[in-house]
């Protein structure tokens, strides 16, 4: 006989609510999330040990293509060193590239620009929608990651990504950075150096850029450098027609 105290339905609802709150958000439909109310936000300081990533923060990058120097690959070198991306396979098309320099020539007037392209950390990531196991995921603070514990290597996310941001690891690896596990048979992409960000540092590419073309920060904090710049100069999101609302924005294209 159930009483208000031991009513099984109430207990279920209470447990489900606690479970949902523990997750930090609820997926209603692709691209729609119920955000939990966050705790004290962390800016570029290290997040307190034991505290979860919070949706109050949204990490982003602003890249000024005007300042990007032709022929310079310091961001790529820094990224690949930091993340232990070091394999050179016989077919170079099978090598992983977390970040790459793209040279653009405007078809109308021939103007040449370069910029680094990496995972755009979309708010509505197509890669997350299509992943069968949920390995491709968006963390509460906006960083899109691959959970390599559950990735089965189907490469569907690589088909879905509009920016060709993802790479597949084609061979066994032994030279990984202990802070950046990566391995054969799983898909990977730029993590916004999540292991550095959680310690209060900036991504390796940002730190290495000699011209200061890359800015990193909390898009949700109006007092941060990045938010102030985005509010004051025109910036674009690449393929904004897809309405993916990326965290990476560009200036000068």
């Amino acid at each position, binding site marked *: 006989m159930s009483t208000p105290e031991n009513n099984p339905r109430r207990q279920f609802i209470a447990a489900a609510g606690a479970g949902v709150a523990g997750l*930090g958000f609820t997926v209603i439909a692709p691209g729609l999330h119920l955000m939990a109310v966050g705790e004290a936000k962390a800016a570029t300081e290290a*997040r307190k*040990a*034991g*505290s*979860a*990533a919070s949706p109050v923060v949204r990490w982003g990058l602003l890249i000024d293509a005007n300042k990007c120097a032709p022929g310079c*690959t310091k961001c*790529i*070198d*820094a*990224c*690949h*060193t*930091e*993340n*232990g*991306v*070091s*394999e*050179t396979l016989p077919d*170079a098309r099978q*090598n992983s*590239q977390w970040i*790459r320099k793209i040279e653009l020539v405007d078809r109308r007037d021939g103007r040449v620009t370069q910029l680094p392209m990496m995972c755009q950390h979309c708010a509505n990531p197509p890669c997350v929608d299509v992943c069968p196991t949920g390995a491709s*995921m968006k*963390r*509460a*603070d906006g960083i899109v*990651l691959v*959970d*390599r*514990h559950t990735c089965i290597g189907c490469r569907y996310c690589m088909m879905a990504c509009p920016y060709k941001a993802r790479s597949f690891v084609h061979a*066994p*690896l032994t*030279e*990984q*950075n*202990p*802070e*950046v*596990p*990566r*391995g*054969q*048979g*799983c898909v990977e992409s730029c993590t916004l150096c*999540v292991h550095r960000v*959680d*310690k209060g540092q900036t991504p390796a590419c940002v730190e290495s850029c000699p011209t200061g073309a890359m800015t990193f920060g909390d898009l949700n904090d109006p007092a941060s450098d990045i938010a102030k710049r985005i509010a004051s100069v025109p910036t674009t999101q690449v393929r904004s027609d897809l309405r993916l609302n990326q965290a990476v924005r560009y200036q000068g294209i």
Partner: protein
Amino acid sequence: MKLLRTLVTIFAALTAVSPAPTLAGEGGRTAKPLVEIANPGKCVAPVDEMRRNHMEMLKHQRDRSLRQGIRGEPASLNACIECHASKTSGSVLGGKENFCQSCHSYVAVKLDCFECHQPKARFKAAGLKP
């Protein structure tokens, strides 16, 4: 029939004479894994609990670290490796006494972790130009 009996006798004799394969070398008939504890001392939890539960600890903690971004948890795989890596090889894999490999080879449980995780302690990665 006589041939079979001869063969069985020879086989029994050889078995009685050959030493039982013990790695630990403490006598008894069951082989035990020889585990090299590079830094003996206090682990995250008592040995019995670690033996029985380390897989569950690592499994839940990996989701908290990766999916929720909670850092600084006690059962960090890197911390285990730092402490337990062999002093000679610098790794928890590679030889039959090395910490993770010894028990896992003994119980024949495949180690999936090191497909992605770096088994050498304090390893500094170097990248290459594309």
